[in-house]
């Protein structure tokens, strides 16, 4: 029997998936692309008019979009790097001790499993200026005399959403990298030891090359998710104060659902995907070429 024998009706296997995907995924992508070249808003009485590239011309000069893109980039780069460093440090630590691995992994997995919206509520209250545990601790220990409004100033609000994201997703990176570390044969380390290599040599010549594919998966997943961040910001700061934490997803959502400007919303969505694809493609090329050079 050939593995790829095409039988009569073999498309039936794909039919349910194809139906659901066409309705909920593929048609919406097409619809978004078409709408991005149209005017359809409150101003047009929700009639669809062809707009050419007007929406994209508007994006080029839209300072609010530029600000949200910058916020999203800062959020993505800082939080993914912090998650990677923390996840890696924890994974190496857990590998180097005897026992307790499952208990540690279960405790660390809890933040990752919580709904992001619930995580946001949780941290918004820890950071609350009047009732928050953090301010209570800082006031009590005398670090500060007046309560700090963590979510009230642009810089501290940004730090707050990044810290919350790191709390939630460093465990994800940890789990992926731990699996990678457990895959490394022990005798490779013994070989380095026989050759007189120390801890750094072990990390550089055994751990790091073996961890590359795992790091790649973790970084890629996290970067793409962080770039799309919505619920965390929506619940914690609503994009504030004064738009300081407004990400591209938040701005696009508002354009669609509050300003009811569907043509421009679609153009923002298309632009977001284009930028994300370019960035992901660049990251992929950089990491894969680096990975190949390691060997």
């Amino acid at each position, binding site marked *: 029997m050939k593995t790829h024998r095409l039988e009569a009706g073999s498309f039936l296997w794909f039919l349910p998936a194809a139906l659901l995907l066409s309705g909920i995924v593929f048609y919406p992508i097409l619809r978004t692309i078409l709408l991005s070249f149209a005017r359809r808003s409150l101003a047009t009485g929700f009639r669809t008019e062809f707009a050419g590239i007007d929406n994209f011309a508007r994006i080029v000069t839209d300072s609010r979009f530029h600000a949200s893109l910058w916020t999203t980039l800062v959020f993505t780069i800082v939080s993914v790097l912090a998650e990677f460093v923390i996840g890696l440090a924890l994974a190496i630590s857990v590998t180097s001790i005897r026992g307790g691995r499952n208990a540690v992994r279960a405790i660390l997995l809890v933040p990752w499993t919580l709904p992001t919206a619930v995580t946001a509520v949780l941290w918004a209250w820890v950071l609350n200026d009047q009732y928050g545990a953090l301010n209570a601790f800082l006031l009590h220990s005398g670090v500060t005399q007046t309560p700090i409004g963590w979510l009230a100033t642009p810089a501290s609000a940004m730090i707050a959403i990044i810290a919350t994201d790191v709390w939630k997703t460093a465990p994800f990176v940890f789990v992926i990298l731990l699996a990678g570390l457990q895959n490394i044969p022990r005798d490779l380390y013994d070989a380095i030891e026989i050759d007189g290599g120390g801890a750094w040599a072990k990390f550089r010549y055994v751990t790091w090359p073996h961890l590359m594919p795992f790091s790649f*998966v973790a970084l890629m997943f996290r970067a793409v998710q962080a770039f799309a961040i919505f619920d965390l910001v929506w619940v914690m700061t609503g994009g504030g104060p004064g738009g300081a934490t407004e990400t591209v997803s938040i701005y696009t959502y508002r354009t669609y659902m509050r300003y009811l400007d569907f043509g421009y919303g679609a153009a923002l969505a298309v632009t977001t*995907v284009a930028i994300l694809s370019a960035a992901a493609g660049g990251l992929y090329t950089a990491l894969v070429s680096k990975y190949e050079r390691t060997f």
Partner: protein
Amino acid sequence: MSGLSRLLIVVGCILAAAPLVLHLMSSVKSTSELNLSPPTLFPHEVTLSNYQALFTKRPFLRYCINSLTVSTLSSLICVAVASLAAYRLARGRGRWRSAIRLSLLVVAFFPPIVYVFPDYEIIQALGLVNHLWGLILPYSALNIPFAIWLLTGSFQQIPLDLEEAAEIDGLTRFQMFRMIVLPLVTPALITAGILVFIFAWNEFMFALTFITIESQKTVTQGVATLSGAFAEEIPYGLIAAGVIASAVPLIIVVIVFQRWIIAGLTAGAVKQ
């Protein structure tokens, strides 16, 4: 080195658990104790009044039932539909298989903001706004690429000899799939099912957009809007109770299904 490792692990675990423990403490304090300054760490007196308020003044039980219904059905539909496609894909031509898997992967990486408005139009056209099926359909569909991707690898590992033997016994392709192949990939089906369940349980943007009435809200949206519910009093105790009550089911899921969750998360990296 070992001492430093231990220190890092202890600090990591404390940081992971501390915010939840703080909320657990707050959730069993009385309103007057919550208003004390400086705040207390351990409750002077344990009260369940916040939980009582959560389930009586707010429809929290309703939120839970809605989330459970939506997540269970989404997970079952998604895994059933994806397993059919993944099996066919695993037994298909190599070139097609890679092309379809790659395009599914690309689609899975698209930010959800791309889908939310056009999907809203569709759900509205189907008359499913403020209806649980209005969430079940998108959650099932949006997780199909991930589930197919995860399951195709498992189906590919099953030797073809089994199916050849079954074919000689006169089984149809579907009987073969249902009676011989599916039982062999049960661990992968469980993994996919649990992860889709968690993703559906945690989803917020679609729930926020498609559901506007209290009786159909899910837990994520319910907890996020708890603070807006009472204008005069500070509902911190209620919020803490809401956070803990919505975290408990997931903590149980993590403890019970840890092995499967890890398997699913690492499948992408291990099987290249």
